[in-house]
C-alpha cells in the first residue's frame, strides 16, 4: 500500500506553488515532509486530499489514480490541516459527532468512541463547550480526533504539533509511529525538525516548490556527510544568513 505523487505541479495565476513533485509514501513508514514557509508543503497535502486539483501530474494510491474513485479516497483519508479551522459554534462533541455522521460511521459505537478519544486527549471536561472557547491546542486535538475517528489508511498531518502542550506532543509523537507500525501511510509535515528526525523513516524536503531531497534520514546523513537533519535542512533549503538577518531586525527595532 502506497501513496505516490508523479510529477505533480500546482500553478496559481501561472506561478508554480508546487513544481514537478514526485515521491512515494509507503505504508508502515512515516514520511516526513519538510520545507520552509511557502515552499508548497500544505499545497501538496491539499492536492492529496482532493481539496485542490493539481495543474499537472497525478496522484496514485496503490497504483490507481485517486480521481477515479474520490469517494473511496476520502473514506481512507485522515487529514489534519495546517490551520485549525473548525466550526466555532459547535461544541467539541457535536463537531466530532457530525463528522462521524458525515462519514457514515456506525452510530451505535460513535458516541462511545468520541467519548474515548476526548478522554484520552483530555478534552472530555470541555466536550459541551463551544469550540470558539477552545485554545489553539484544544482545537488541534479536536482536529486530530476528527482525522482518526474513522480509522483511515492514509494519515496526512500538516503541522500537527502546533499549539499542543508538551504532554500532548509526546503522546502524538508516539502515536504517529504506532499508526505507521499498524500499516498506515503517514505523511507528516512539520517545522519541528527534531521531532521529524525522531519519528520519520523517510524524508522529503521541498524548496521553492521542488523536491530537493527524497530519501531515508540515514542515507541523507551519509550522502551529505552531515550529522543532523537540521544541518541537512539548512544546507538544502535555507539560502539566507540567519545571523545577519536577526542582527538587522534588532537594529530596526532600536531605531
Amino acid at each position, binding site marked *: 500500500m502506497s501513496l505516490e505523487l508523479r510529477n505533480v505541479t500546482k500553478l496559481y495565476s501561472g506561478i508554480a506553488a508546487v513544481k514537478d513533485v514526485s515521491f512515494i509514501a509507503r505504508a508502515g513508514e512515516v514520511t516526513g515532509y519538510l520545507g520552509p514557509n511557502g515552499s508548497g508543503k500544505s499545497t501538496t497535502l491539499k492536492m492529496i486530499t482532493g481539496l485542490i486539483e493539481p495543474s499537472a501530474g497525478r496522484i496514485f494510491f496503490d497504483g490507481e489514480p485517486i480521481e477515479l474513485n474520490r469517494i473511496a479516497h476520502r473514506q481512507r483519508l485522515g487529514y489534519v490541516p495546517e490551520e485549525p479551522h473548525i466550526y466555532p459554534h459547535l461544541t467539541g462533541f457535536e463537531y466530532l459527532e457530525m463528522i462521524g*455522521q458525515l462519514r457514515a460511521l456506525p452510530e451505535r459505537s460513535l458516541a462511545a468512541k468520541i467519548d474515548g478519544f476526548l478522554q484520552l486527549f483530555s478534552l472530555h471536561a470541555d466536550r459541551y463547550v463551544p469550540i470558539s472557547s477552545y485554545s489553539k491546542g484544544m482545537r488541534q486535538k479536536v482536529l486530530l480526533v476528527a482525522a482518526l475517528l474513522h480509522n483511515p489508511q492514509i494519515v496526512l498531518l500538516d503541522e500537527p504539533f502546533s499549539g499542543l502542550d508538551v504532554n500532548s506532543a509526546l503522546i502524538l509523537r508516539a502515536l504517529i509511529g504506532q499508526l505507521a507500525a499498524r500499516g498506515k501511510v503517514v505523511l507528516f509535515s512539520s517545522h519541528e525538525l527534531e521531532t521529524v528526525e525522531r519519528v520519520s523513516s523517510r524524508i522529503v524536503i521541498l524548496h521553492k516548490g521542488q523536491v530537493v531531497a527524497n530519501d531515508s534520514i540515514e542515507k541523507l546523513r551519509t550522502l551529505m556527510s552531515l550529522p543532523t537533519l537540521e544541518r541537512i535542512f539548512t544546507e538544502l533549503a535555507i539560502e539566507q544568513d540567519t545571523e545577519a538577518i536577526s542582527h538587522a531586525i534588532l537594529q530596526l527595532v532600536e531605531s
Partner: protein
Amino acid sequence: MRRQFTILYRLFLARLIDLDILSARGDVRELLARSLSILAALSLCLTYLIAGKYFSMGLPRTRYLYAIWNDEEFLISATIAVAGLFAVLAWNTVFPDRRDCLILGVLPVATPVIILAKLSAMATALGVSVFAINAFTGMVFPYATVDKGVVPIHAAAAWWITVFAAGIFTFSAMLAIQGLAAQVLSWSLFLRISGLLQLAALFTVIALFFVTPPFAATMLDHAFPTSLLPSYWFTGLLHRLDGDPNPVFAPLAAMALRNFSIAAGIATVTWALSYYRNIRRIVQAPDIAPSAHGHAAARIVRGAAFGFLARPLDRAILLFTCRTIARSRQHRLLLAACGGIGFATALAFSRTFLEDLRSHTRWDTPAVPLLVDGLLLLYCAVAGIRGSFSIPLALPANWIFRITAVHSPAAYFAAVRKSLLIVGVLPVWLACLVAYFSIWPGRPAFEHMLVLTLAGLLLADCSLYQFRKMPFACSWLPGGVQLKMRASVYALLFLTFASIAANIELRSLERFARFVVILAILGSAAVWARRRAFEFAGARGNRLQFEDLPEAEVFALDLRQDGDWSSDEAYVDAIDPHAGRSFARRLRPLGIWILVFLIVGFDWERIGEWRDGKLHPQAGTSYNIGGRSLNINCAGAGSPAVILETNWGMPGFSWTPVQRAAAAFTRVCWYDRAGAGWSDPGPFPNHSDSVARDLHQLLGAAHIPPPYVLVGHSMGAFHARVFRGFYKSEVAGMVLVDPMSEDITVDIHNHIEAFRPAVILFYKFLGIFGGFRLLEPDPGPPPRGMNREEWLTTWTLRWQPKSVVSQTKEVPLWINGELARSAGALGSLPLVVLSAGIPGRAEDTELESQERKLELHERLARSSTRGRHIVVPNSNSQIPFEAPEAVVAAIRSVLAETSGKTR
C-alpha cells in the same frame, strides 16, 4: 487628539453597520451607496404617490384634511421604521465590542475621544438615513399640504425637525433598552439577552410599521390606545410645530416630547456608563458559554433528529442547521427579519379582525385573511431558512464537508431538503394546525392543513431547485443585491398569488368536489416540483458547491474522460436534465394531466346530470316549436292567462312561489326560455325578438289562447315589452318586476362582441367537462318565498351548462333594451311597475343609483296611461323570491283592470 478622532470616526462609521449581517465580504462604501440610493428612490416614489395628488387636486386644505393627516403619519412611520432598522443593524456596534477593547484598550487613546468619535459616527449614519428616506418627501410634502395661514418655510422646518426627532427617538429608545440591560444584567446574561432584544426590536419595528392603523380614523375612535404608537406622537408634534390649534394634537405632542426626553436621557447615561464600566468586563468574558437551558434544548433537538431521521447524513445536516441557526446571530437575525415581515404582513391582512370587532368577516369560519396568513407564514419561513442557508458561517471550516463527502450529491440534496422541511415548514405547519383547529370547525381546518402541507412541499422544492450548496458552508458573492431584489419580487408575487389562491381556496372549501380538484392541482404541482428536483439531484456531473462563482460567460466543454471532473473550486454546472428534450416532450406530463382531468371531469358531469335528473324531474310539459322544444308549466284556471317571464339566466321554475299564490284566482304559466330549465337550447343570438317569437309559438302549441297578462322580471321585462310590441292585440296587461331600463343598458358594453362565439364555445367545453359543476357557487339559504327543495331545484337548473351557455346567447343587454325601446309606448295598457326598495350592489354605482332607477321606473310606468309605479319596501331586486306577495298583488290588480274588457 484631532487626528485620533478623525481616524476613529472613519473607522467607526465604516463598521457601524454590521456588514456580516448584510453580506459576507461586503464593501462598506458600496453598501452605503446602495442603501442610501434605495431609501432616496423610495422617497421619490412616495413623493409621487402621496404628495402628487395634493398638487393635482387644487382644493383647499380643509377639504382633504384627513388624507393629509394619514399621509403625514405614514411618512413619519416610515422614518421611524428606517431609523429602527438602522438601530437593529447597528445593534452590536454602538457599544464597544471585544475588538475595540483589545485594540484600543492598549493604545494611548483617551476614552472621551473614543466616545466622541463613536457618537459622531452614529449621528452621521442616522442623520443620513433619515435624510435619505425624506429626501424628496421632505422637500415636497410640506409645501403641497401647507395651510394658507402658515409660511411654507415654517412648514418645511417643522417637518424636518419632526422627522429627525422621530429618528433620534427611535434610535435612542433602542440604545436605552440595550444600555439598561447592559447595566442591570451580568455581562454573560446580557450577551445572551442582547440577541433576543435585537430580534424583539426588529419585530416591533416591522410590526408597528405594518399594523399601525390610519391616523384620522383612529383619532376619531376614542377607544383606540393612540398613546402606544410613536408615529402618532410625532404627527402631533408636527402639528404643534405648525401651530395647528386642533386640541387632538396637544397631548400627542406632549407625549412625543416627554418620551423623546426619557429615551434620549437613558440612552446617553447608559451609553456613557458602558464605556467606563464595561470595557474590563468585555475583555474578561469573551464569549457566550452555553447555558444549562441551552444544553437541554440541544439535547431535545438531538433526540428529535434521531427520532425523525433514519440516515446519519440527514441527522448531521439537520443538527448542523439547527445549531447554526440557534447560535449564529447573523442567521438568527435574517430569520427574525423574515419572521417579522411574515407576522407583520399576516397581522396587516387580519387587521380587520383586530380593528373592527363588528366586522362582517367572521374569524371562526374560513376567511380569506386567515387563509392567507398560513400561506404567508409558510412562505416567509421557507424563504428565511433558504436565505440563511446561503449565508456562510466560518467559511474556512467548510473543508471538513469536502473531505468527508462520501455520499452522492443527491443524498446531500435530500438531506438539505429534509432540514428545510423540518426547520422551516414543520414549525409553521404545527402552529397553523393548532391555530386553525382552535378557531375553525374540523373539516375546513383539516382541508386547509392539507393545502398547507402541499404548499409547504412545493415551496421547499421550488426554493431548493438548483441549490447545490451545503447550508452555511458555501461562499457568497457580495453581489447578493440581485438576489435580494429577486427575493423581494418573489415575495410580492407570492403575496399577490397568496391572496388569489386564498380566494380560490375559500371557494373550494364550499364544495368537496371543488376542493378535490384544487388539491389535485396542488398535488400535481408538488409532484412536478419534486420530480424536477429529483432529476436535478441525480444529474450527471452534479456535485456539492462550496464556492459561489459568477455565471461563466464562456462555458468550458470539459471534454475529459468520465470521472475526471474539474475541481470543486472550478465548479462545472450540472448537465441540464432536460437538455435534448423537445418542447413537446417536456409538455407531455402536463398534457397527460390535462387529459386525466378532462376524462374525470367528463364522467363526473355525466354522473351529475343523471343525478340531477333523478333529483329534479321535469315540472311541466315540453312542446315542439319547430325542431326543438320548450317547457311550459301552467296552474289554475281563468283568463286572461298570466305568463311569467324570468330574469336573465333564471329557469321558469323560479316563479313557483308566485305561481302557487296566483293560481288561486287565474291560470298562471311559467316557461323555460331556450336553453333554460327543461327547454332545448336555442339559436345564437337569442335576443328579445326571438324570445318573443319562441314564446308566441309555445303558447300556440300549448293551446293557451290570448289575451295574456305578461309578467317580466328584470331583463324579462324587455322580452315582455317586445312581445307586446309584436303581438299588441294579445296582451291585456303587464306587470314589470324591478325591470331593466334601456336608458341604463345602453351604456353597458362589457364584451367585445366578436369574441362572443368563442366565449360560447369555451363555455360549452367547460360544461362538457364539468367546469360549471365545479365553479357552481354555494346556493346558500333559500329565499323567503321558497322551501329548500324548490331553491335547490332552481339553483341546479340555473347552473346547468346549457343554461349558462344560453344566458351568453341572450346578451348584450343593450340590444334587448333597444328592442324594447323600439317596441314603443304601452298606450293604455294596464301596467304595474314594481321597484325594489332595498338597493342592491349594482345600485351603488353612479350609473345605476337607486334614485336614477326609481326615476326610470316611474317614467316606464308613465309610458302607459294606466300605469302605476309601486316600490316594494321590504325587498331587494329579487322580488319574485323575496316578496312574491307583492307580485301576486300586482297581478291581481292588473287582472282587475282588464276584467271589464276581457271577460
